[in-house]
Each structure stands twice: as C-alpha cells, then as structure tokens.
C-alpha cells in the first residue's frame, strides 16, 4: 500500500500551490524581514518590552496537577507552562493580492501551532493564545512571506480596509492610520494594533512589487489567477457540496 501523502489543498494553480505551502508545516516560511522582539511587543501593545508576563496561574511544574494520560501525551506550550494570560494578535489582509487570507491564516495556525484559538472573519483574522506564544507567532507572521507591509496590517479594532481600493501611496486604507509609508520606501508602524500612538516608528520593510505580490498571493482573482482556471478546485468544492447533500438524507434530487 502506497504511503499516504497529505494533500493540503486541491488544485494545480499557483494560488493552490501557495496555499499548500502555507498549510504544510514541513514547508519553511520564507523570511523577508527582521522585526525585533521588542518591536513585536510594542506593536502588539499587550505589555511593555521587558515587562514580566502577567500570569493567570502558577507555572505548571509548581501546580502538582493530578496524574492524567492526556497531560502526558500533550506537551504544554511555553506560555502554558509559565501560566501566561491569553492575549491575541489580529491581522487584516487586503483583497488586492495580499499573501494571506483569513481562512489560509486559520488553516495555517491549525497545522503549524498548538494551543491556539483562531477565528476568521472577512476583514480580519484573529488568534488567541498564551501571551509569549502569541508574541512568537506574531514575530513569525510579521517576518515571513505571509506578511506584505502595504497589504497586511495588525489591527486590533477598527479593522475596516480589506476590501477597499488602495490609497494613492499603495497602502491599504486604515481609518486609524496605524502605518505610514516612509520617504525611504519602508512601511512604519506609528501606532500599535489597537491604535495607540507608539513612541517610535517601527519599520516592517518595503512593499513587494506587483509581480511579486501576484507570485505570493493566496487569493483567486480574475485579474490575477481566476478560480475558473483551476478546475480541480471548483470540482472539488462541487464534489463536497454534492456529497454532503446526498449523503445527508439520500433524497434523489
């Protein structure tokens, strides 16, 4: 019997390939920029850099928990071990060829991280986890190919912008103007994700070119790669719909 090989996403298009890459934990995300731990904490806005993590329970090793086979099976995350409180990170992705979409981010979380509670909406994607775990995930997401400085943005509230036309400087609209385009071509955070002003500007690098965006994007668009061109994806969805309909109650329509 042939060895089962996980197929993370159907289809043969570049979009499908990109989705497969992001969903596959064996695929190493391409690092595109450096954002320091201190800057990640500043953008998140949950604690000041260097400040101790607030905890909701003592470290697990001090808690003398009863024997439990599940506890033996599941290795706690670093944040859980330490008893960190649960905090969040939230991103908005433009529909104009951002590298990620909310569902792709959620699927990524499930495949690549543990101890996460992720939620998808159309205009934002959120993940909640223990605070130091959130910081690590945020750093991974900000530094890698999942992030595009002009088209992705950390927004805790007032997230409006994912579906809007881009501004004349190429940035995604943000009512609270958390990021700005510097004269050096880099995008800077000037407010944290909830919209509070930062004491310093934090660079997240230069936007990609249009060609680079289309190479990295995970959204099917007619002016990029349309979903009609990836018949396997369409047929796969149709198959799911037909199977669920028919298998459910076997009516012969």
């Amino acid at each position, binding site marked *: 019997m042939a060895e089962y090989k996980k197929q993370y996403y159907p289809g043969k298009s570049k979009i499908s390939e990109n989705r497969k890459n992001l969903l596959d934990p064996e695929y190493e995300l391409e690092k595109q920029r450096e954002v320091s731990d201190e800057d990640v904490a500043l953008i998140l806005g949950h604690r000041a850099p260097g400040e101790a993590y607030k905890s909701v329970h003592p470290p697990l090793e001090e808690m003398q928990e009863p024997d439990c086979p599940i506890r033996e099976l599941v290795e706690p995350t670093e944040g859980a071990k330490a008893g960190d409180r649960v905090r969040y990170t939230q991103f908005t992705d433009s529909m104009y060829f951002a590298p990620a979409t909310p569902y792709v981010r959620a699927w990524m979380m499930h495949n690549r991280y543990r101890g996460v509670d992720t939620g998808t909406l159309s*205009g934002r994607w959120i993940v909640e986890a223990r605070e130091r775990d959130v910081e690590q995930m945020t750093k991974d997401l900000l530094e890698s190919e999942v992030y595009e400085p002009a088209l992705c943005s950390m927004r805790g509230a007032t997230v409006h912008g994912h579906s*809007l036309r881009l501004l004349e400087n190429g940035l995604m*609209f943000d*009512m*609270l103007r958390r990021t700005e385009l510097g004269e050096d071509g880099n995008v800077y955070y000037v407010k944290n994700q909830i919209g509070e002003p930062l004491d310093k500007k934090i660079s997240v690098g230069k936007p990609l070119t249009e060609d680079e965006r289309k190479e990295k994007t995970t959204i099917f668009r007619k002016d990029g790669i349309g979903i009609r061109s990836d018949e396997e994806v369409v047929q796969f969805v149709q198959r799911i719909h037909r199977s669920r309909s028919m298998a459910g109650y076997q009516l012969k*329509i």
Partner: protein
Amino acid sequence: MAGVEKRFVEALSKKFEEDPKGKVMKHVGMGIEQSERKMEFKKWGDKITKERGISGYDPMLHLGGIPLGQRVLMPYKPSTTETYCEGDDLHFVNNAAMQQFWDDIRRTTIVGLDTAHNVLERRLGKEVTPETINEYMHIINHAMPGAAVVQEHMVETHPGLVDDCYVKVFTGDDELADEIEDQYLIDINKLFPEDQAKQLKEAIGKSLWQAVHIPTTVVRTCDGGTTKRWSAMQISMAMIDAYHLCAGEAAVADFAYAAKHAAALDMASILPARRARGPNEPGGLQFGLLGDIIQANRIHPDDPARASLEVVAAGVMLYDQIWLGSYMSGGVGFTQYATAAYTDDILDDFTYYGVDYINKKYGGIAEAPATMDTVLDVGTEVTLYALEQYDDYPTLLEDHFGGSQRAGVGAAGTAISCSLATGHAQAGLSGWYLHMLLHKEKHGRLGFYGYDLQDQCGSTNTFSIRGDEGEPLELRGPNYPNYAMNVGHQGEYAGISAAAHYAVGDGYVLNPLVKVAFADPSLKFDYSRVREEYAKGALREFSPAGERSLIIPAK
C-alpha cells in the same frame, strides 16, 4: 452575459463620483463634513446635550478622536428606484416606511366569518345575508379602532389617532363578493392577474374572511400578541350589535373563541420561551409567508426575478434590521448587512445574469430539471459571475465592504437563479450553500465566524424535510435552528422560496388568505413596491400611521 451593461454601474458611478473600475482611493480624510446627515446628527446631538444636560451624540469618539468619514461616506440607491439617500436613512429608526412595513404586518390578523355565521344560523336561528354582513362591516369598522357599540358610558379612542384601523373581507365566491359593498371588499378579480385570481379563488372557495388591521399605536404600545385579542373583543361586540344578541348569552363566547382561535390566523407563530415573543412577532414569520405578504408577483407576473427581489428587500429589512438587529441583538450594525441586498442594483444584476443564463441554456424559467446537476451548473456559473464582478469593479467591492454582505448577496443571486431555473425552493437553497462553499475558496474568506457556521453545514440539511431534521424552505423561518442567529440569510431565504413559486406562476407561496389580505390598497404600506416605499421613507416623504400630534404639545 458578455456585452450586457451591468445594472450596478450607474449607482457606483454616482456613489463614488469616480470611475467605478478605478483601483485607487483618491478621497480620504474628509470626516463627517461630507455628510449632510451626519452633520444634522451632530447639530441635534449638541442641541440635546445642551437642553437636557446629559451628553449625547458626539462623532469624535473613535480612538484618537478620529471621526467617521475617513473615506467616502457613500450614499445608497434603493434598487430599481432613482432615489439616492444616506445609509443612515435606511436604519429603521430613521425610516418611517420601514417602521410601517412591520407595523402593518404585526397589526394584522385574518379571521374567518364562516364559524360565526354557522353559530348565528344553526345555533341561534338568525338569518345571515349579504345585507347583514354589510351592516356588520359598518359596525366593525366603527368598533375595531376602539369605539363602543354595546355599553353606555364607555371611553373610546380618538378616531384621528387610529385612522389606520379597519376591516375588510374577501372570498373566493364571486357571487357573494358582488353583494359586499366596495368599501369593505378586497376584490381578488380586480387586484390579481386572471390566472392568479383563479388559483386564489379556488383555494379560498366559498369561505368568507376578514382582514383585520388594528391600530398601529396599539401594537406599538403592546405587542403583536395583542392583535388577535384586540380584534376578537371588537368582533364579538360587533356581532352582538349587528345581530341583536344578548350580551351575556353563551353563543357570544363562540364568536370570541372563533375570533381568537378557531378561525383566526396569525401572521407569525409564537416563539419558545428562550426567545420570549408572542404571536405576530418577526421571529415566527415563516419564509414562505413573507412571499405571500409581498405583492410584487401580482404587479410583475411576468418577471419573477423582480418579484423575488422585492421579497428579499422585505425580508432583510424585517429579519435582519428589525428582528436580529434589534429584537435579538441590539445596536445598529445589522443595517449595513441588509442594505447590501436591496441597494445599488447589485443583487438585481447578479439575479438577472442568472435569468439570462437560464433562458439561454434551459429555454426559459422553470424549464430546467430540479436536479443536483442543474444546481451545480447554474449555481457555479452565477456564483463565479457575481464574485468576478467584485474583481472587475473595485468600487463594487468597496460598496460591499464586508464579506457577509458579499456572501449574502452573491448567494442570494445564485440561489434565486436556481429557484427560477427549476421552480423548486429546495434546489434554490442548495444553490445558496454551493455559493458559500465556492465563495470561501475563491476569496479565502466569507463572513464572520458565526455567519459562516450555518453555511458550512447547510448542504447537509438542505433536503431534510422532516420536522426534527429540516423542513421545506417555505415552512422554515427565523427560528429554524441553524438560522436563528445570523444576519444576512433569512430575508434571502424568503426570496429564494418565493422565487420557486413565482417562477411557475403560483398564485401564492404558502397561504392564499395572506396573499389576498396584503393585496389591499388601503394598507399604509404598499407591499407591491417595497423598495420604492423604503426610498420614500428615506426621503422623509412617507406618511406613517401611529399619529400622536393630536394629543401632545405642538412643537
């Protein structure tokens, strides 16, 4: 179809005052000064704060004091009208037509007269003739608004406050209808196209029914559960007067029982305790029944798409803006979801694309077989067309700036097309869920968590019709388990179920009595022109009932 002008282009051009295909947002940072309505709100907020000494509306309270309007506060065009209004004008609090839309339903009960007439003739030996019926109608139209007909020294309601209250009758019996005074008759022959009238009269038969509309003020002060009680009390009194009965004799209890229970029809059924609403409240109004309340198929019998879109407009306003948005949730956000389905001719464009596709491929409306293959074919094509419009027109994407708006409208266009293709509501519903699955894959996003939930599992119960597993779509309603929580679905479901029946020329969707009762031109709200009425409300040109100026100080 290629080369066909998009119906939404005109609205987009006027809304944004830019090329609707432009990809760059040029106008930013204008604030509320761009909006006449927001400025009006601010002025009133300042005035109220000063007069009452408690702070009120203050548009500078977003984080950092940044007001709304950092991008274009676009106006909206109720679809098929020439009216442009501000989004605020489509919140039901700001729109008297929307309020009256619901008031006119909530204050309506349909009560049969046959039971009462049987009691009169068989039990009491009284004679019932067209003359006595007309005399009864004269009396009930005095009594129903809150006037006395039996006792002395009674308080009564001011006629000027309850002028929207009246009773009319209808029947499938042409001979009897001819004997009823015109002022009291809902004339099926005059109001409906011939084939619809024939179906309705056959369904109603020789029975005689009253369409009772109690005062708007009463249901606003009490609730929908009051309607039947108020009506039954006045009907009993009118019977006593019209047929010269003893006020205390046991037969009177039969009139009350018939008017409250045996021969009374609610517009909406009572809800379980956890939703805590009585009859004639929106959560119990079945989707199929809304297709009967709305009268656009009577006005546009050859355009079932148009008629279905009016049902959607009715449904999203009632179920999203009023029911989920206020009864169940509170707040103002739901209006944005709902308006997407009845403004800017967008859903119209998607739906008529489907109609063109059906006509070309299957040779006409309701000509396609009701099979999964049809659903996959029509559903996929209309879905991809709709979603590609958001790619082609950036201002369209900006108009429907929330994924739930796009999902609801795209799925509605898809599902109505499937209903129209097959004449089968369940096939339409199947198209809805197919759209949702495809939409999620194309955009990598859909609505919000809860919004998506019912659409991820909807395919499996589409064809479930047993009571504990599902139901025919016409019989489902806002309290159907999976549907009870999410905006952007219920009104569309009403349109989908209606579309199947309009497609095959049915005279009614679920109940012929409701169809006829709401055809009455004396109603304050015109249910054949839902979007036009909303537009009148937005322009502040709609005159509602529920007048109070007669009993309050002049301003």
